[in-house]
C-alpha cells in the first residue's frame, strides 16, 4: 500500500505512460528551475510529436533544447524563444510550430487549467496579433480577449524540497512557472533536490500541496546559469 506516497525511484518510472503526440506542461524560466533530468528522460525515451508549453525552450544542448536534436517537439507554446539556434532553424523550416503567448497569459492559462477554469478574459494582447480571432468583451469601458486554459497529459516540474506525499517547497526564483505547471497536468511529475519524511515540513511553509503531485523523484541537478553577471567587490 503506497497511500499518499508519491516517490518513484527511477526516471523511467517517473515518465511511464508518456506517449507520442501528448501535451506536456513544463515548469522553469530560462534554465532556472527546469526539470532537467525529466527532460533528459524524455530524450532517452525518444517520444515524438510532443506539444510542450513552457515559458522558454531551453538553449542549444540544455533544457528543452535537447529535445529539438531528434525533433521530438512538434509544437511549442512559449513567450520567448530567442536563445536557441536549433529552435530557430526548425521554426523557420516549419518543422516546429510555435504559438507565442504572453508570459502572464501563459502562466494564467496553466493556473486556469489546474483550477478548473476553462477560459478567462485578459486585456493582455487586445489589439495585437495575439488577440486575432479571439472573442473580445468589454468590461467597464475596456476591451479584453478570451484566453483558454491549458491542460497537459503530463506536467514536468522541479521543486527544491518535498515530503513523500509530494508537498513541495521551491527555492528563490526557481519557483517561477513550476507551481502552475504542476497543477495543469493529468499526471504531474516533479523532481526535487531533497525528499524528507512526512511531518518534517511545516504545513505553513509548503508552497504547493501534494494533492497536485502524482510522481516524485529525487535527482541531482546541473543548474546551468544562462547569464552569469557579477559585480566586483
Amino acid at each position, binding site marked *: 500500500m503506497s497511500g499518499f506516497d508519491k516517490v518513484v525511484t527511477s526516471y523511467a518510472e517517473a515518465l511511464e505512460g508518456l506517449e507520442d503526440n501528448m501535451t506536456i506542461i513544463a515548469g522553469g524560466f530560462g534554465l532556472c*528551475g527546469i526539470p532537467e533530468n525529466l527532460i533528459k528522460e524524455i530524450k532517452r525515451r525518444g517520444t515524438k510529436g510532443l506539444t510542450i508549453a513552457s515559458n522558454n525552450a531551453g538553449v542549444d544542448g540544455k533544457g528543452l533544447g535537447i529535445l529539438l536534436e531528434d525533433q521530438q517537439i512538434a509544437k511549442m507554446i512559449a513567450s520567448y524563444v530567442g536563445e536557441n539556434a536549433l529552435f530557430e532553424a526548425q521554426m523557420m523550416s516549419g518543422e516546429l510550430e510555435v504559438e507565442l503567448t504572453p*508570459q*502572464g497569459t501563459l502562466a*494564467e492559462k496553466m493556473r486556469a487549467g489546474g483550477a478548473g477554469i476553462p477560459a478567462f478574459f*485578459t486585456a493582455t494582447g487586445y489589439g495585437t*496579433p495575439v488577440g486575432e480571432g479571439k472573442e473580445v468583451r468589454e468590461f467597464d469601458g475596456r476591451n479584453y480577449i478570451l484566453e483558454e486554459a491549458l491542460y497537459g497529459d503530463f506536467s514536468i516540474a522541479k521543486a527544491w524540497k518535498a515530503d513523500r506525499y509530494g508537498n513541495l517547497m521551491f527555492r528563490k*526564483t526557481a519557483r517561477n512557472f513550476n507551481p502552475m505547471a504542476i497543477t495543469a497536468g493529468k499526471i504531474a511529475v516533479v523532481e526535487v533536490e531533497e525528499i524528507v519524511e512526512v511531518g518534517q515540513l511545516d504545513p505553513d511553509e509548503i508552497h504547493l500541496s501534494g494533492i497536485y503531485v502524482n510522481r516524485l523523484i529525487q535527482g541531482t541537478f546541473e543548474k546551468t*546559469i544562462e*547569464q552569469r553577471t557579477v559585480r566586483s567587490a
Partner: protein
Amino acid sequence: MALTREQLAQRVAQEFQDGYYVNLGIGIPTLAANYIPQDMQVMLQSENGLLGMGQFPLDEEVDADLINAGKQTVTMVPGASIFSSAESFAMIRGGHVDLTVLGAFEVDCQGNIASYMIPGKLIKGMGGAMDLVAGADNIIVTMTHASKSGASKLLAECTLPLTGKGCIKRVLTDLALMDIADGKFILRERAPGVSVEEIASLTGGELIIPDNVPEMTF
C-alpha cells in the same frame, strides 16, 4: 545633444517616488536602478517572480536559483519576496506595480506600442511585455527618437504589429520627453541643446508644443 544611455536612465529615475514598486525592462530601463536617490526607497519587481531585486552578486554569491527576467544572476534586498510567475503577473495585471519602464521600436500618438516583432525578421517572442503594457497604468517607454537614417519612431500610427493598444501615456527618447493624450504627442521636455524644431521635424503624428518646453536637468 541627444541623451546618452546613462542620461536616459537618469531621467527615468527622476520619475521614481519614495515607496514605489517598479518594473524595469531589459536595457536602458534596467540602468535606471543605478540612479535611485539615496534618500528614497524603491523596490524592483522582476516578472519571473521576485519583488525586491538587488544588485548583481559578488562572484561567491552567485546562485543559479536566483535570476532576473533577463536571466541574469541577481541578489535580493532585505524585505524581498518570492512568488510564482502567475502571482507575479497578477500583481502586474492587477495594477499593483506603480511604474513600468520598457523599450519599444515604435510608439504612436494613439498610445499604441510596437516592441516585439518585425515582420520578416526572426520573432523571438513578447515575453512579459504585452502583460506589462496592458496591466500597468503608469508606463514610461524609453527609445531612440528616430532611426539612424532619421526615420521617426514616434508616429501617427505604428507600422509594426502592436504589443499593446492605447496604453502608453509617456515616452522618453534621446531627444525629448513626451506625454500622449487625446491622440496627440505633447512635448514636455527637451534634451539639453536640442531645439523644439529638431524634435518636431523628427516626430510623426500630431505634436502639441507648449509655450515653454524646458531642457531636462540632471
